[in-house]
């Protein structure tokens, strides 16, 4: 049965038919967009005018997120900025440590009496001056329950005394850079890096396994996607053990799961050869709403954590260069194996040295195993310079830039990590487009909140929290930004034949909007109100999700 939806405006992203007022859907796919008469020619149909006063866009595509954003909402939100949870409740940002402690106390009071842990997430100490949170501070919330708050970076955790005790860390003589000690010779309660965090994590309800997307979390993630107009979302670095795949198949297979998930297998705990073999197997398990068999590699760490690999002259504050998370040999072997088996590879690179290493190893690999239209993508790729973008273009690479970074850490990049010149060219969207590199932009949720219109606003305005514009020359237009969060991201996933635009034959995926992004304009792009989504013809309203 064909359903024709009239709308106030349909922004199709199809250049040969850019604007329409009607879209016809049959069997979850788009029959066409155009005038009512054009579409009526397809035969029997009903007209559904629930979107008559809405604006439709192609369902948005988040090209770099992690499904465990959903699981994070098990914990208490402790961030500095307002953030919407899967229920649509906006949790106000907390502007002082005291406000954080108050929110944790409310959680304590709301829980059954006892020693169940209190977990928090998204703390970002850079917004609270020089103060460091201590275990004594958190003991003020409870000395009975273990308490742990994970930082927004994901790489640091603050815990109370009870949690340290349970973790076996409340002792003298610890000598570890990730466990700072107080004047009493005991840990202060700040735990840095995966090893130090892992010891306490299971005692404070922030166990990595629990937090790496369980069934509940994945369902929550689906709800968040509806609220943000997203119909295709990546889960960009999952180890994908068999039990996780089974869980994801079950959850995404439910008839009311609203998103097509694209989960990339992370290079971790296996050899390059095994990784490729596993991804070939995974690819065959793909379903309509769970796409498997793509590869993710991490080349380096993060810029704000000083673990990204930078070329000369390195970090602005003189910090030593960062860490490699894969060797050139491993990367080349993965690229060669993946090219041979037609597997898509996305590579995490933050610093310009990591980008260069990716380009060098990929160039050697693709020379040995040529594959036209491979669409290998550099993820984050924050510090790429123009010459590197030119090389990407020549090598057929795509880029997915971390536009949200400017809003959260832009001032820190300017003042501390990379200095003014490179901070201005970070996430150089305009350069990528000028050099002809296929471009997407992303949130890396849960590192920053899922929300492609917000991400687009970041790329269009490049504002920092202090109001500084970082890189006037790298701003892109609203039209270009809308392309990156639809077709642009779909292209990097090799899904632009299925999604990303509203045109004949594609999946009936729409973002249903109250506001027209062009009318609302560059300055307010983040405020576009989302009514809901249509995914493969199924309608999901925010208010019912």
């Amino acid at each position, binding site marked *: 049965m064909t359903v024709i939806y009239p709308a106030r405006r349909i922004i199709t992203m199809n250049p040969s038919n850019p604007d329409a007022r009607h879209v016809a859907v049959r069997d979850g796919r788009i029959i066409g967009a155009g005038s009512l008469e054009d579409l009526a020619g397809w035969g029997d149909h009903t007209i559904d005018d629930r979107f008559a006063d809405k604006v439709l866009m192609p369902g948005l595509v988040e090209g770099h997120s992690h499904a465990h954003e959903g699981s994070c909402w098990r914990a208490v939100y402790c961030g500095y900025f307002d953030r919407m949870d899967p229920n649509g409740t906006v949790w106000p940002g907390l502007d002082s440590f005291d406000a954080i402690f108050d929110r944790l106390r409310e959680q304590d009071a709301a829980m059954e009496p006892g020693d169940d842990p209190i977990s928090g997430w998204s703390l970002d100490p850079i917004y609270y001056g020089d103060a460091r949170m201590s275990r004594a501070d958190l003991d003020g919330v409870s000395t009975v329950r273990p308490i742990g708050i994970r930082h927004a970076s994901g790489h640091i955790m603050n815990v109370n005394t009870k949690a340290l005790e349970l973790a076996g860390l409340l002792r003298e003589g610890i000598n570890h850079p990730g466990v700072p000690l107080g004047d009493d010779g005991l840990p202060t309660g700040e735990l840095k890096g995966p090893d130090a965090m892992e010891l306490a994590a299971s005692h404070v309800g922030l166990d990595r396994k629990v937090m790496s997307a369980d069934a509940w979390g994945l369902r929550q993630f689906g709800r968040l996607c509806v609220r943000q107009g997203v119909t295709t979302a990546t889960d960009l670095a999952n180890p994908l053990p068999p039990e996780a795949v089974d869980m994801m198949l079950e959850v995404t297979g439910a008839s009311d799961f609203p998103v097509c998930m694209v989960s990339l297998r992370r290079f971790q705990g296996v050899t390059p050869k*095994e990784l490729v073999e596993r991804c070939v197997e995974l690819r065959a398990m793909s379903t309509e709403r769970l796409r498997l068999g793509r590869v993710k590699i991490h080349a380096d760490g993060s810029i704000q954590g000083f673990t990204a690999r930078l070329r000369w002259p390195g970090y602005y504050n003189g910090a030593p260069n960062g860490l490699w998370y894969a060797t050139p040999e*491993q990367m080349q072997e993965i690229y060669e194996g993946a090219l041979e088996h037609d597997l898509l590879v996305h590579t995490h690179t933050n610093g310009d040295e990591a980008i260069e290493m990716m380009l060098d190893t990929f160039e050697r690999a693709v020379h040995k195993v040529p594959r036209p239209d491979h669409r290998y993508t550099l993820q984050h790729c924050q510090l790429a310079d123009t010459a590197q973008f030119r090389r990407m273009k020549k090598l057929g690479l795509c880029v997915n830039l971390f536009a949200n970074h400017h809003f959260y850490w832009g001032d820190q990049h300017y003042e501390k990590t990379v200095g003014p010149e490179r901070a201005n060219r970070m996430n150089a969207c305009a350069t990528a487009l000028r050099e002809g590199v296929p471009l997407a932009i992303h949130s890396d949720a849960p590192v920053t909140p899922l929300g492609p219109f917000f991400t687009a606003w970041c790329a269009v305005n490049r504002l920092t929290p202090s109001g500084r514009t970082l890189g006037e020359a790298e701003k892109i237009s609203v039209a270009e930004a809308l392309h990156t969060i639809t077709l642009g991201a779909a292209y990097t996933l090799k899904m632009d034949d299925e999604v990303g635009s509203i045109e004949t034959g594609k999946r009936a995926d729409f973002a249903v909007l109250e506001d027209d992004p062009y009318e609302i304009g560059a300055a307010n792009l983040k405020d576009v109100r989302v009514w809901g989504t249509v995914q493969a013809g199924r309608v999901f309203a925010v208010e019912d999700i």
Partner: protein
Amino acid sequence: MADAPAPIPVTVIGGYLGAGKTTLVNSLLRQADGLRLAVLVNEFGELPIDADLIESRDENVINIAGGCVCCSYGSDLIEALKTLETLDPAPDHLLIEASGVALPDAIAQSTTLIARYTVDGIVVLVDAESVRGHGSDKYLADTIAHQLEVADIILLNKTDLLASDLLGQTREWLHANCAGARIVETEKANVRLPTLLGARLEAPLSDVGHNHVHAQHESFVLSVEGPVDPHTLTKRLSDASFDLIRTKGFVTGMDGCSYAVQTVGRRASVVATSQSARDTGRIVCIRSGGPIDRSALEAMASELTD
């Protein structure tokens, strides 16, 4: 309350891809001879353990003849350490094979987050043929430099593949680029287990067989007559001038108590012990690649016990 369980010494084995880390691990497992070694590897990959040593295996654990075990830890070192700690009987010694670009000192420090583990030493393998190339590679130079700097012992491996003049240059290059580590030359990562891990060092090394396949070592038992400051002693024993790979023994301190002393390359450790006084005063010393300067050691010992 029960006695605290014995600490588990940890040796971190670092080095870039192809340096021979897996070969070394297998060689040590073959020499285990009743010593329960636990091995943590980043991933199982292609045969981390020689097939004839394997008794059984599942996804993350390989059981090895003689009570040894090998586990893969992926990204979760701490969880693997917590699991190993609960084994009954507990491992006598833990080997952690670091990935090629890992920083072995960071891994060693992480093991100390769990009270049960104590760092025995950091062994870094280098491929005699490729180490200088890697050491000047635009991407790898600082990582290789870091690995060499933090090594207590460097195994200069695959020396048979290099002409002697090139080997000499490589040796000099390593000396210039490490921070006082002892350099042991090997061909197929063959080194005696007591030398590297300190276990069973009480027996003079000549009692240990298959000399022909191992790097040439000399051992000497140094007598320390009378009380001595154990910290000064180990500092001197670990000094590069004696070039000792490993020393281990018991001494009586100035306070009359007994101390277990050991050095692993440049690393020194002193632990108070309940060893009775009559067993103290003997320190087994091992050197590779040349004779031990016994008279200098004896002179040092007598100076310290004056």
